[in-house]
């Protein structure tokens, strides 16, 4: 399944603030809904999103059921050096997705 969509520049100037847009495929089942038989549907959400830049954490989002399905998060970071941005989403039922994005910083 195409899990995630990342939009970040491939190139930036040192010190430039870059904007990163992330979209992950996930129903974010709240745990408050009831199905046709009246039985509560168990919670199944992404609980944590972490962005690391060459191994150093630069952004973290702790999510609760009130985050809409297919979580969309936009944040920024300073382009410090060339390397890789790593993105990891983890959540209920062992959910774990990682993506990475190479960036060249001049």
């Amino acid at each position: 399944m195409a899990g995630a969509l990342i939009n970040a520049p491939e190139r930036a100037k040192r010190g430039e603030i870059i904007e990163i847009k992330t979209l992950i495929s996930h129903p974010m089942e709240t745990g408050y809904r009831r199905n046709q038989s009246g039985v509560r549907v168990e919670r199944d959400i992404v609980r944590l999103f972490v962005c690391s830049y060459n191994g150093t954490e630069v952004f973290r989002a702790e999510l609760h059921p009130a985050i809409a399905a297919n979580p969309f998060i936009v944040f920024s970071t300073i382009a410090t050096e060339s390397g890789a941005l790593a993105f990891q989403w983890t959540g209920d039922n062992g959910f774990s997705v990682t993506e990475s994005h190479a960036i060249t910083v001049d």
Partner: protein
Amino acid sequence: MAPRWGLGAVMVLIVAAAAVAGEIPRAERRSGYEFMSRDTRAMQDDDTANPAMLWVLEGEALWKAKAGAAGRACADCHGDARTTMKGVAARHPAFDPARGRPINLEQRIMACRVDRQEAPPLAYESRELLALAAFVALQSRGLPIDVTVEARMQPFVDAGGATFHRRQGQLNLSCSQCHDDHWGRKLAGNVVPQAHPTGYPLYRLEWQGLGSLQRRLRGCLTGIRAAPYEYGVPELVDLELYLMSRAAGMKMDAPAVRP
């Protein structure tokens, strides 16, 4: 003093006028996009923020993946979808000589899957089928809807039109009453659009996911408390065909976002 028949004649005229009121003049046709809030439009306009693109990405991967007993990928026959699939969604539902009737895009994809890839059919509204449909529909984005109604298609368009104009369900409403006569007005908190299927398959906020036009039609039927047709039945495909021909010339904006 007015002649005695005056009031009766006036009433007949009003009733007659209401019966013809129906069709939206061509120049007044508006895409559902125009009835949305600025924020929802922004969601659709930005490919990096449109949740439908998650399905498109998956569709692109499926396009290239070998499948079935024939071990063929869509790409093996159709090459680069950006070229070969251009305009295809804008032309569907289209007449299928093998079946002797129009079929919609999802059915076309399914037919290829079964006949050419020799793979088991994808279920209606399954993630894979929607992903492929979204990927193919994207290749018609910006193109005018081009469903050609040749003579052999006319009976099916008419059948769809009959469904569109027929009162149904416990609420005894026809599609036409809302979407021809009262578009632009509010139903509870929502604006009633004109019901042009320019953006399908689309990400609907109410579904929190991507779905087909048939899903939306079934939802509407449930809404007026009519029994929704099963996926893929002729009545639904004929209705799709009618809606697409009613929207002929309007620009496709699939995969869209709608409330």
